[in-house]
């Protein structure tokens, strides 16, 4: 479904990604793990078009997407749920959700999608008219996820959805991600919580200093000595 090939991405003169390649198949949960500053967000931003790679290619559903503008990539069916939620603080919950349906094909079905999203996050329906900035951290994350689903995406990319949440809410987030996959949505999940992430992902990539250092089935990575030492604290 998504094929990233040998991507180099720079911030000015500083190179942040070095020949990164990654593949995601239909209906998979693929995890991208790595320490703070490894380049996970940079890779996501490169896929969604916020950053333009200096070399390499990205293909989504057999279409080259590297170098395209973000709004065009969104139309193709990639949803990016950004780090730090990035809600529209002075819009209501409902308005935030409707913004998620901004793409041409999603706008026509937004009422229907809204019902579906409310079914996944009943709490958002209760808070419908409230301003986004008045929500608690957990509610804000639910809203960010709900907004990301409003475009009826084929591929959802979550950037650290559990960061800053209480353990109970972290479980909730992971549960939602699993349900989404059951509904046929493909998922790229970025997390710093390596253990829990590897437990729900089918496959994973490990990013260190802008390079992919290992990849494979989650179950295999969980047994990998380097990963055990560096990320699992075993």
């Amino acid at each position, binding site marked *: 479904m998504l094929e990233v090939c040998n991507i180099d991405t720079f911030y000015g003169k500083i190179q942040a990604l070095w020949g990164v390649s990654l593949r995601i198949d239909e209906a998979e949960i693929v995890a991208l793990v790595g320490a703070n500053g490894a380049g996970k967000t940079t890779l996501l931003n490169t896929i969604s078009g916020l950053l333009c790679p200096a070399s390499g290619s990205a293909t989504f559903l057999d279409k080259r997407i590297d170098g395209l*503008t973000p*709004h065009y*990539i969104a139309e193709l069916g990639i949803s990016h749920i950004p780090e730090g939620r990035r809600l529209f603080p002075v819009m209501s919950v409902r308005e935030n959700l409707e913004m998620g349906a901004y793409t041409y094909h999603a706008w026509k079905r937004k009422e229907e999608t809204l019902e579906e999203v409310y079914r996944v996050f009943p709490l958002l329906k209760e808070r419908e008219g409230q301003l986004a900035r008045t929500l608690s951290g957990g509610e804000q994350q639910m809203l960010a996820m709900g907004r990301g689903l409003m475009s009826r995406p084929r591929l959802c990319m979550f950037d650290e959805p559990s960061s800053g949440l209480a353990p109970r809410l972290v479980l909730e987030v992971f549960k939602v991600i699993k349900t989404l996959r059951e509904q046929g949505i493909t998922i790229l999940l970025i997390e710093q919580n390596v253990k829990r992430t590897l437990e729900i992902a089918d496959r994973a990539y490990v990013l260190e200093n802008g390079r992919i250092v290992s990849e494979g089935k989650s179950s295999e990575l969980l047994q990998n000595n380097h990963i055990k030492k560096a990320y699992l604290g075993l």
Partner: protein
Amino acid sequence: MKKLLKSSFSKSIFTFAIAVLLMTIIRNPYHVGILIFLGMNLIITMGLSLLMGYAGQISLGQAAFFGLGAYTTGILTTKLGLPIITAFPLSILLTVSIAFLVGIPTLRLRGHYLAMATLGLGEIVHIVFNELLSLTGGPSGFGNIPLIKIFGIELDNDYKYFVFVWAIVAFILFLSLNIINSRMGRALKSIHREENTASTLGVNTSRLKLTIFVISAGFASMAGFLYAHYVTFLSPGTFSLRFSILLVTMVAVGGMENIWGAITGTVVLTLLPEYLRFFKDFDILIYGIILMSIMILRPEGLYGIKIPLKRLRNNS
């Protein structure tokens, strides 16, 4: 009543009704004249509010667009003898095209390039007004611009023109409110502080900013058209950078959160100098002090200020 006020149509009709009511109460040609200029300013600042408050961009070229609208209709009707009904769309079209050409390269970039580009445009337009002697009469300007005739009625006094201008103010308000409440308006609201996020949700941010900039130039041009056929005489001084800055200040002082802020700011800053005349030579000084106090005490703008009277009444 509240429900009625909620729809943009009734808000616009309501505004128009208040204005006309005010006119019948005032019955003083000088004051009616001031309210005509207020109407023109409002037409410009409503567009500027969409651009500044919603799209987060500043234009220092609104006076130039105002001037382009005025000069185009003025020249077409006097020098070329075109009927006003033909000159009107041409003057809007010319202004909007120039805004489009300026906006295309600048609005692709992030940051305040639009402010710089429109600053330059304002200067160029000003120079053209001054130097194109055969058409514009240069620094001393030109006159004899015909009056507007509508349904056989010539708008030859301030009262008739007042009704005409405020009907257009109401129409522009109606248009603006509809833009704000549309899918496009929602997107505008979203790009202000979260441009990246908006773009990953599918908003074509540069095209959106360009559209709103062109609309704001169109509004300014509309005001220019009204100005030309009211004053019937044009000279470059009116369309200077000073006026552009004043327009931006009106929006900032009133508040950029929504269009009512721009309206508040425009009313206050248009009428304030009239009241300050009383202070003779000190008027500019006092005007400056009032402006500074507003910006220091209430940086988010005048609109939405809680009137303390209400609190006093509640306390007692």
